[in-house]
């Protein structure tokens, strides 16, 4: 079933924002579901099979070495490339940046992998449940020194970042004293290094009375989480971050207020909040479309999926992403990547353009490029018999719902016209070069 241009633009927007674009055959399936049906499918990943996790795990040692950080990075990128649950992976990426934890301190890829699975398991679940799981997570207990937090000698690191970066936000209304009291409540939280499971050391736990955000009791860490999860600042902080992630970079309090109500009405349900966002008017506002700068992972993985590049040829991706400024499992600090315009500077933009050139060249060298590209062109059902038509067809394939400017179109057409011989080998060269240029254009960096 052919979608109208408007529906097609909306579907492309939805799949870019709530996933990592679509493979050609996936696009057909989503088009049959329509925008509403696709939204529903994305929000319910549990309805789609997830054989990928067990397959990848079964070949532990061959394909994935869970004790090697680059290998775990590839494991995750493999999941993103082949998942049938794109929003689950997109939310896992969101949580990785929200509870930003880095292996350069944790120094244990298996724990980093375990944390990633915790994010996935709670990707669209209950936020309070997520907070309790993350607070018990071995990688987090190392990263923010929770495992060193002792009765009588509290370590403030986790307590502070829990409030500042994970829940209430820096202006959320807590005090230095609240930080100290929260740190006391989490004393004695440990984990067993051999089994990588949470444990509780009662001897190191301070079970005395604490006054936290105006309430007094013999609080433990879970009590602190219960109090912060129901705090309005937490609703505002989380909804603002989700709004920036899915809709636009600069929300006002009025923009996020409706979603904060959903947070409370649903009992802190992330799926409800994200669902409300993906079906809101703000999400499909013309100003929101193609307004956000793609993160490196988004740029790389939408390209890999759209061009159907085999992951087996992409073992260099962890290094490529690092050069683009997004070293997975190694965010720069506990605040995570700043995102937005921070993704883009002279160096990282060059890396993006160089990546596109490399990946298209290598596909050509392997003889894969032509068939896949012509498949995509045929799917779009657009003619490619003139330079102008080819530019139009290829642009629409990669950026549905956005037109190039007159100058951009002219630049691409000038390139295509020079030595144009449709149907002959020379056109193959032109198509490869045209795709490189379209994917190197400023417009392609936007989602």
């Amino acid at each position: 079933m052919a979608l109208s241009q408007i529906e097609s633009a909306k579907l492309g927007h939805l799949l870019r924002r709530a996933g990592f674009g679509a493979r050609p055959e996936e696009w057909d399936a989503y088009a049959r579901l329509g925008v509403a049906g696709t939204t529903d499918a994305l929000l319910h990943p549990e309805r789609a099979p997830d054989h990928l996790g067990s397959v990848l795990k079964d070949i532990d040692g061959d394909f994935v070495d869970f004790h090697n950080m680059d290998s775990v990075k590839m494991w995750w990128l493999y999941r993103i490339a082949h998942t049938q649950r794109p929003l689950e992976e997109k939310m896992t990426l969101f949580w990785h940046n929200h509870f930003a934890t880095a292996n350069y301190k944790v120094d244990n890829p298996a724990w980093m992998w375990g944390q990633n699975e915790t994010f996935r398991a709670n990707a669209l679940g209950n936020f309070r449940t997520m907070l309790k799981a993350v607070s018990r997570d071995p990688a987090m207990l190392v990263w923010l020194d929770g495992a060193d937090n002792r009765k009588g000698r509290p370590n403030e690191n986790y307590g502070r970042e829990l409030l500042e970066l994970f829940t209430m936000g820096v202006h959320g209304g807590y005090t230095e004293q609240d930080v100290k009291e929260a740190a006391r409540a989490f004393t004695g939280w440990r984990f067993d290094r051999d089994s990588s499971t949470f444990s509780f050391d009662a001897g190191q736990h301070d079970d005395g009375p604490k006054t936290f955000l105006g309430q007094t009791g013999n609080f433990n860490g879970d009590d602190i989480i219960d109090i912060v999860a129901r705090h309005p600042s937490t609703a505002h902080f989380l909804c603002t971050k989700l709004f920036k992630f899915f809709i636009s970079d600069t929300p006002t309090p009025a923009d996020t207020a409706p979603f904060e109500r959903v947070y409370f009405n649903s009992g802190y349900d992330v799926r409800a909040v994200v669902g409300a966002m993906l079906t809101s008017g703000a999400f499909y506002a013309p100003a929101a479309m193609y307004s956000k700068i793609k993160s490196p992972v988004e740029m790389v993985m939408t390209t890999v999926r759209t061009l159907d590049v085999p992951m087996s040829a992409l073992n260099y991706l962890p290094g490529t992403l690092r050069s683009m400024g997004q070293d997975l499992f190694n965010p720069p600090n506990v605040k995570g990547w700043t995102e937005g315009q921070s993704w883009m500077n002279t160096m990282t933009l060059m890396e993006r353009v160089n990546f596109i050139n490399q990946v298209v060249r290598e596909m050509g060298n392997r003889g894969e490029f032509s068939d896949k590209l012509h498949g995509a062109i045929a799917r779009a059902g657009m003619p490619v018999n003139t330079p102008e038509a080819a530019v139009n067809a290829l642009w629409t394939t990669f950026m549905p719902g956005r037109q190039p400017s007159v100058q951009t179109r002219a630049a691409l057409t000038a390139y295509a016209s020079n030595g144009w011989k449709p149907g002959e080998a020379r056109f193959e060269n032109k198509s490869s070069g045209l795709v490189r240029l379209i994917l190197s254009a400023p417009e392609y960096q936007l989602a």
Partner: protein
Amino acid sequence: MATTRREFIHNGLAFVSLGLAMPHFLMQAAAADPMGAAIPGVPAIPAGKILVVIEMSGGNDGLNTVIPYTDPNYAKLRPNIGIKASDVVKIDGNLGLHPRLKAFGNLYEKGHLAVVNSVGYPNPNRSHFQSMDIWQLGNPDLDIKDRVGWLARYFDDDGHLKSNPLSGVTLGSSLPLTLFSEHAPVSAVGNGRDYGFRVDAGDRDAQLSALKALYAEGTVAGGNAEFIRNVGSEAYSSSLQLQQALDHYDTKAGDAAKYPRYNGFAEGLQTIAKLISGGLGTRVYYHSIGGFDTHANQPYQHGQLLGQLADGLSAFFDDLALQGRANDVIVMTFSEFGRRAKENGSAGTDHGAGSVMFLAGAGVKGGLYGEAPNLGDLDDGDVRFHTDFRSVYATLLDNWLGCKSSAVLSGAFPHLAFV
């Protein structure tokens, strides 16, 4: 990444060599073509002094960096992680450097190291990110709307600097807020070597001219698209210039300087030395070293980091001297905050306030500035600050970079005598 490297040499050099082999007047023409349309002939930046900013991120423990080794309170506050008086590198009767800062001790003896004690700002913020923003913006008021870094404001105020994407250079792949504004065209150059567009040799000319056209002024308007277009056009012109500059480096001098091996921080310093020797005219270089957030098991980690810092900078200054540029460069270090005076329960320290800054180079009047920390008079467990960090900035802006600090810092701050 061997493949990428090889490909770079085979394919990318086709592009890079364009920059290396071209006579200078053609370079200028290339930089003035559509990709660099905003750069009429690329004005050479006026020769001037250079500032290298070193960010020590995570919150460096000032009290274990410059140690008040005779203060009895020091040993009391730090029974487990304190540095013994017998181990410190003494620089006066009361203060000494961490043993791993031995190379800084040598600089100090030569009169090339200024130590500014108890630097901070009123109402210290203990959030890493907010305090880092305060230092990078040069403004303790975070509610300001215009989030432009203090050195970016210096560029913005100077027409020459504003028009050249290499006025400011940062290593790595992210721009620090210090150098970030919508106007200041600062370049992040990674490790320098790979800074260039890699286009296939066969289709090179056609691809490059189309790429330039896609990033020429007017292809996209407004918002993030235009922001990206600007970055792309700067990337193109700056990559040509930078590769040419790297080629000027006296490698023999670099070898003689003996940069520590397996030290990424020192490697970055050597890249900076190369660019300085290549005469790029860059006024500000930015480089960072992370890991100072020593909440637990501090002694080993902190010592390693300080060793990397001092050994790297020591080689860097040797290199500059051999390249004949020693008198043109001052290095400034900063960190977002110091740490609590009292150690915590996990052989570490939590977030504190006032800390220490170093200024190094032949152009510096060495010595002690600010006031030594008084551990008998703490401010809620933290070292009390005496010198506003903006005094250090103002001194550098007025007396080293040669601009008017009051415009950049929105106010006048007393100068220190280190330059």
